[in-house]
């Protein structure tokens, strides 16, 4: 609990100078959390911090441009803040960053697959286990089993940028080799199988654009290419082609920008593993330009710049 106490103390100290602080509070049941907007000292008591605080709150930051706001970030969320700063979508002096060293958050889909979550009565954390109380009795699950995929290969548990840090900085104990494990699995298939794989996954897509709306780097808001009539990138047809087009469109607009926070996949109501599409581009960007989005504030994102001689690009000579 000491992380939470430190957070509350830091927020109390800063609240005067900001219009609001964004954190997490209990949602409609104890298994779900929801973003909390702290505007007055009384709101601070509702703040919580535990592995259920899944949301990347940095998604809200571009909305508050022009106002000074405080934000709570985990290690992964801090990368989004850095990327937003790099693209000048937010100003450094307009954000107060409360960093939290994070040991990983849960993937609710993984819990739902193991426990019937329709009537959760209580949730508690005991060491590295989560105990969920339902009318059928109490179920204990090891946290390691239900951690979000991004946490299993997390390289940045401590925020890379912060004004206040709650607790001691921790370093990653996760093997970096796992970072692209799922991508590599798909790469091993031949093109026909790959197409069949995506066809099977993407046919579930209902184009609700939850992935876009949750994405902290989708900042076009009302000017999204997917909604444009001219050019008409996407029609109102319901075929698989439009679903492919949408997912590729999103991934390409994130090329060299995606910080791998996993909000797209978490928000997907059809549980489609869409983060893999973004991850594939991240992998190529890393190989080509040695760049990881949201890690270094000083570097220009690779697609916003160029080199006259590209050492990594082997252009085809016909």
């Amino acid at each position, binding site marked *: 609990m000491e992380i939470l106490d430190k957070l509350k103390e830091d927020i109390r100290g800063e609240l005067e100078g900001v219009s609001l602080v964004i954190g997490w509070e209990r949602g409609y049941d104890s298994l779900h959390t929801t973003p909390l907007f702290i505007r007055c000292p009384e709101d601070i008591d509702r703040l919580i911090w535990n592995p259920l605080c899944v949301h990347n709150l940095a998604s809200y930051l571009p909305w508050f441009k022009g106002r000074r706001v405080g934000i709570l970030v985990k290690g992964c969320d801090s990368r989004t803040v850095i990327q937003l700063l790099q693209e000048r979508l937010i100003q450094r002096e307009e954000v107060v960053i409360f960093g939290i060293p994070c040991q990983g958050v849960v993937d609710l889909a993984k819990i739902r697959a193991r426990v019937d979550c329709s009537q959760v009565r209580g949730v508690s954390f005991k060491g590295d286990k989560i105990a969920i109380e339902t009318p059928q009795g109490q179920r204990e699950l090891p946290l390691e089993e239900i951690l979000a995929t991004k946490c299993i290969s997390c390289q940045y548990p401590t925020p890379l940028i912060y004004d206040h840090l709650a607790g001691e900085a921790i370093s990653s104990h996760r093997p970096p080799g796992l970072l692209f494990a799922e*991508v590599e699995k*798909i*790469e091993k298939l031949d*093109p*026909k199988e*790959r*197409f*069949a*794989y*995506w*066809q099977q996954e993407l046919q579930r897509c209902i184009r609700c654009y939850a992935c876009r709306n949750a994405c902290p780097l989708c900042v076009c808001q009302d000017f999204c*290419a997917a909604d444009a009539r001219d050019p008409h*990138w996407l029609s109102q047809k319901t*075929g*698989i*082609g439009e679903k*492919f*087009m949408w997912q*590729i*469109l999103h*991934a*390409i607009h994130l*090329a*060299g920008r995606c910080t791998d926070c996993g909000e797209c996949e978490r928000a997907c109501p059809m549980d489609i593993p869409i983060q893999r*599409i973004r991850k*594939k*581009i991240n992998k*190529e*960007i890393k190989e*080509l*330009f040695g760049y990881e989005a949201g890690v270094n504030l000083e570097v220009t994102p*690779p*697609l916003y710049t*160029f*080199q*006259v001689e*590209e050492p990594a*690009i082997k*252009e*085809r000579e*016909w």
Partner: protein
Amino acid sequence: MSGMERKELRIVGFLCNWCSYGGADTAGVSRFKQPTDLRIIRVPCSGRVDPLLVVKAFMEGADGVLVSGCHPRDCHYAEGNFYARRRLEVLKRFLPFMGIEPGRFEYTWVSASEGARWQKVVTEFTNQIHRLGPIRRKGDGGGDIR
């Protein structure tokens, strides 16, 4: 050359106005024989080619897409093709992940004076697409992408 011997495929070419389009013109003026599968779309610069244009072409049923611009350092707009090179390289590595075979998309550089080179590029690329065949045959299990 091709139309009589084999079924024509749909290949889309995005050519920059200043070099490759001129190169294709030079090839035509010089009466070099070329396959006729390629449909040319003239763009101001290879930097104008949004990767999504390529994706959209595939989704609309193109069997192959070729982007061609000025040689690096020779861009009419000084640096358009440098940006294009980065984007197109990422796209080229990404498309196979979604199930579009490697080789269906290529980018290259042809200058306005290189008529012979244009002939070589278009012939080789067309042959490459013919080896891969139409992008989705009806009834191959995958079905039509549309």
